[in-house]
């Protein structure tokens, strides 16, 4: 390789590196600003020019978690309650969706039944549906059933938006498990249920983790349904943040703190399932070695 070649290669590398730095700042900048703002007092927050050095003020976080001085303020009670709602809705909704999706995915992977293709498409179409298109009807239905502004109602929504995707992803993972796994067990006198629980399920552990990760993030971030179907009692954290305002105007510090709290579980979940993410994104088709 000639000297000029190495030279231009080096320049290319530096340019690329510079672009990456810019891109990172573009992406992380707002998040960094959010974290900084969540630690500022009201006075520091509005200071001009913006302060980069300041005394951290945790009142925002205290009010999100309902502790400390802000414990009993009305605003705090609301935010803390919405955090609990978000956690409950996401975890229970995810658990149920993954459980149903795992069972349905197994059936779709192993058995042929009338209308299977249509069923699989229908299941997927629930994810293609723009929520806004059906919100009005959900609103009316929920009002009739007494599910409006309840956590149960939101859990049902979380299951609904996730079970189709969970079925598809899990079907992909089950397709990667040879049918012989169950057949050997059946030939040897074990039941299919035993083979499913003790042999097949352990082989798709990673797939279940990835599916759970996706479902959790989708329901954690879900905004459209939650914003229309709740008013006060069962607001989730994303909805609460968008509507938060206190007696003294908009509580920016509190909103920023809530925003940080909203991001953290997503980061934790992605970190936990990072090994399985790629497999999940390809619907398990890479599962078979």
């Amino acid at each position: 390789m000639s000297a000029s070649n190495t030279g231009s290669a080096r320049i290319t590398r530096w340019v690329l590196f510079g672009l990456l730095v810019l891109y990172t700042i573009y992406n992380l900048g707002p998040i960094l600003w959010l974290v900084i703002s969540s630690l500022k007092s009201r006075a520091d927050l509005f200071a001009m020019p913006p302060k980069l050095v300041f005394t951290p003020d945790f009142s925002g976080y205290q009010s999100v978690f309902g502790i400390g001085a802000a414990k009993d303020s009305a605003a705090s009670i609301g935010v803390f309650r919405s955090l609990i709602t978000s956690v409950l809705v996401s975890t229970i909704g995810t658990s149920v969706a993954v459980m149903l999706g795992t069972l349905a995915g197994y059936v779709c992977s192993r058995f042929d039944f009338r209308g299977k293709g249509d069923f699989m498409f229908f299941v997927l179409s629930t994810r293609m549906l723009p929520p806004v298109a059906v919100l009005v009807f959900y609103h009316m239905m929920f009002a009739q059933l007494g599910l409006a502004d309840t956590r149960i109602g939101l859990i049902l929504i979380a299951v609904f938006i996730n079970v189709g995707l969970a079925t598809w992803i899990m079907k992909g993972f089950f397709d990667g498990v040879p049918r012989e796994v169950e057949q050997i067990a059946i030939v040897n006198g074990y039941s299919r249920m035993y083979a499913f629980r003790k042999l097949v399920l352990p082989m798709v552990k990673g797939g279940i983790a990835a599916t759970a990760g996706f479902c959790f993030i989708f329901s954690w971030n879900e905004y459209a349904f939650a914003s229309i179907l709740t008013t006060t009692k069962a607001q989730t954290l994303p909805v609460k943040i968008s509507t938060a305002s206190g007696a003294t105007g908009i509580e920016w510090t509190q909103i920023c703190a809530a925003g940080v709290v909203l991001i953290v579980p997503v980061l934790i979940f992605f970190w936990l399932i990072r090994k399985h993410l790629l497999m999940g994104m390809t619907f398990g088709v890479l599962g078979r070695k």
Partner: protein
Amino acid sequence: MARIDLKDLTIRFGGFTAVDNVNLTVNDGEFAVYLGPSGCGKTTTLRAIAGLEQATSGDILFDGKRVNDLKPSERNIAMVFQFVSLYPNLSIAENIIFPLKARGMAKAEIARKLDWVTGVFKLGDELKRRPAALPPGARQKVALARAVIRDPAVLLLDEPLSAIDEQFREEMRWELGHLQRELGVTTIYVTHDQREAMSLADRIVLMNHSKIVQVAEPDRIFFQPSSVFAGQFIGSPSMNLIDLVPVAGGLRLGDSPVVLSQSELPPGITARGAVKLGIRPRDLRLVSGEGHALAVEDTFSVGRERFFTFTVSDQILQGTDHRTQPGAGSVTLVPEGMMFFDAETGLRITEAAA
């Protein structure tokens, strides 16, 4: 141990007939190999014997007892599949004793059996490891160990060696044959590899288009194929097939000048309709000097073996050069190697029938 009878076995999937009216007896302790191209129904037959597919009509008998309605687990069979189906979350030992645990066998008995089978398969060092730590060939060995540990009445093997590296496959094939004779277990083995079938089988069951084509010992199926299909499917390189054209005084080989005279032909054959000649490359000789006037077009060698090709009716035919020294020559046909087939049915014309 068991004798297996298939009586008029037919299996349909919707409109597709996968197994068409198959009749067969596999004797106690026999090593039967189902051979045929993919999609010919051999695996479906095997799975029906296992109970993993339902017979649409016909019966499956184990020692004269009808087993159609018995669950796979009630038939006392063991299976090994093409793709290794060990359980990755169990150790090798746990995988092997998996069938025994299902029947609640006593611990001491399980340990004794495991000891025996690990001795047979020389798996002593691997017992504590996980399947992922073993090469594919060794994994298939474990699958075999798992199959035989329960003393099955029938051992069903579905292309067990075809996903293994060639080098290891030879070794496994040899071990498998040896093991089957030692255990004396009735074995049905499915493969599309005729060399595997030839080296393992007591009898080959050749299938094509959902039907049995021929059932015979490997030597017999090689030397006495019942049809064009049998003749061409078995043997490598493949049997040559030449159209015979009736001419005055005999039958001519396609568009070549060579005429087989009445004395070279089975009696009565010229009176039949269209006939084809089948001849294996090993029964075509290249001789120096006179012979049939077939010109050699090309020669090539694979290792020590030399082959030559020539053309009849635009078909390239292949022969084996048996001479010690290469050189020019003309093609002759070994009379004993000539086989005649009905051009319409593809069936062999034996002298008795002609």
